């Protein structure tokens, strides 16, 4: 039982990170209908911003304020990078077939990875400790403060996202755009601005995910984004691409399943599990758990 609870907590804290990344995939898919392959590298960038903020800029860490400052810094820089990527690489292709945009997205992803390898160096780096760390003991259960922090930060970000999407004018415009792009521009919504905003928002969440991931797995390298990115995408499909609550749920489920599989002695296959889930969900319910299946209209 203790073992089960322990795995449950590990799974939730991993799933929370997947949820943050999956939200970015889902949001971009909602407004532009394509998979932003570069998303997982923005996630990687977030972790490196954190690393350099501490090592080069000398942001004082160890207390709560310093850590949060690093988190905000990573989120802002990732948001800017996300907006720039959309502006420079995706916007000129807006009227072209999705395939062209998809290929460009892969190009951007590779460029970020390889630039990362030559700028940051290909060797893994030790991620500094951002927050004070203690182990909490509840009976035999041991929870690290980092795990609690990951869950708390994710919850705050999810709540913030929910507020933006459902309670603000920009959020309403986002939903309108994802519902029908032509109609939204007819009622006076500046589609380009909303798309930029969506990229910024999604990338900020990926940046936060990068920091949180690096806190729990403190070895970062320029290719670290690929696997979490892939799993977060599976999470988005599992929950239903385009659905925000779906992405959060999917992330949590993938995190839990992965942790339990890793705990049962099949740990070398933990990366293959997400893939098996993807195949299953595509076979059984392509619209995802919370997504609506839509038919094409001509």
């Amino acid at each position, binding site marked *: 039982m203790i073992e089960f609870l322990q795995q449950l907590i590990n799974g939730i804290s991993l799933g929370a990170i997947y949820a943050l990344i999956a939200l970015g995939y889902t949001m971009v898919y909602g407004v532009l*209908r*394509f*998979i932003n392959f570069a998303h997982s590298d923005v996630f990687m960038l977030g972790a490196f911003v954190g690393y350099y903020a501490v090592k080069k800029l000398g942001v004082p860490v160890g207390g709560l304020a310093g850590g949060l400052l690093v988190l905000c810094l990573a989120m802002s820089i990732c948001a800017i990078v996300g907006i720039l990527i959309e502006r420079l*690489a995706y916007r*000129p*292709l807006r009227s*072209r077939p*999705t*395939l*062209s945009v*998809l*290929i*460009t997205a*892969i*190009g*951007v*992803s*590779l*460029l970020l*990875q*390889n*630039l990362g*390898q*030559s700028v940051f160096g*290909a060797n893994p780096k030790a991620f500094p400790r951002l927050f004070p760390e203690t182990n909490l003991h509840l009976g035999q259960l041991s929870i690290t403060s980092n795990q609690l922090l990951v869950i708390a930060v994710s919850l705050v970000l999810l709540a913030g996202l929910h507020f933006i999407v459902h309670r603000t004018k920009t959020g309403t415009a986002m939903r309108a755009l994802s519902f029908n792009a032509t109609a939204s521009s007819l009622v006076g919504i500046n589609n380009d601005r909303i798309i930029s905003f969506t990229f910024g928002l999604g990338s900020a969440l990926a940046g936060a995910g990068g920091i949180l991931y690096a806190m729990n797995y403190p070895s970062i390298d320029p290719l670290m984004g*690929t*696997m979490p990115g*892939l799993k977060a*995408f*599976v999470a988005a*499909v599992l929950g239903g691409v385009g659905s925000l609550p779906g992405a959060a749920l999917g992330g949590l489920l993938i995190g839990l399943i992965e942790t339990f599989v890793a705990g049962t002695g099949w740990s*070398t*296959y933990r*990366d*293959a599990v*997400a*893939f098996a889930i*993807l*195949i299953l969900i*595509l*076979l059984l319910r*392509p619209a995802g758990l919370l997504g609506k299946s839509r038919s*094409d209209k*001509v």
Partner: protein
Amino acid sequence: MLPRSQIVLLISLITAGIISASSSRIDDYILDVILGIGINIILAVSLNLINGFTGQFSLGHAGFMAVGAYAAGTLTTGPGKVWFDASGASPALLFPFVLFAGGLTAAVVGLAVGAPSLRLKGDYLAIVTLGFGEIIKVILQNIEWLGGSRGMVGIPSYTSFFWCFGAAAVTIYAAWALVNSTLGRGFLAVADDEIAAEAMGLNTTRYKIIAFVTGAFFAGIAGGLYAHLKGYISPAGFDFNKSIEIVVMVILGGMGRHVGVVIAVVLLTVLSEKLRDFGDKRMIVYSALLILLMLTRPQGLFTWKPARKAITG
């Protein structure tokens, strides 16, 4: 009287045989590069069938190559060697069957990977094949009798000029014949407008799966050739970068064209040999090239006429 295309195929095979007979006079390094070009032609032409003519987007070609390489390697070096030796036939005679077995294994895996994702429209295939490429590495690394992450060593070098370019010629011929058949019209129709094709009564899923499985088959053949050329394969050698290299060749040559793709393969293989000293900078050039190409010349470098459509006019 044979049709012209089959005469061309026959002439290419004979030429390959003649050059092969005197290949010992060619410098080893240059021969290696040339054989690499042949393998890349098979890979790019078969990927072109999926990405170009059928308008789908596969990112896992290196994964199918890995399956073919390991399947063929198992027969000549791994546990399958028992049967190989027991048959008593000369290796040169058995080699095409080994290649075929590799291609067949890759095709079966292609069916398993493609069938669920090709039922759906959109970008699912891209992510599924990307995932497949990563996962096949993990799986191969975990199978001890295939060498695990150390890879498979001591594979005999059966790949000669003839087998390499013979297979390339057959691939080009097969792709050409397929595209010019009734099936091929279906591929082009799916690429043009999937909804319209469906409305016309075409079973689009079937066409997509046929194109995908055929592509995977030839990727498997290329894998077998690669394994018996290098003599050593490891899971890490078939990574995402390899898949992207093939994708870039197809895009540079123009999706849905044969000649352009072959030119692009020759150009890029030679270029990447020259860029070998730059190491990781090579991939920066590759990725920047990909983005620039999509922004400026999405139809490919070597294309002047508009792409083929299922219907003209």
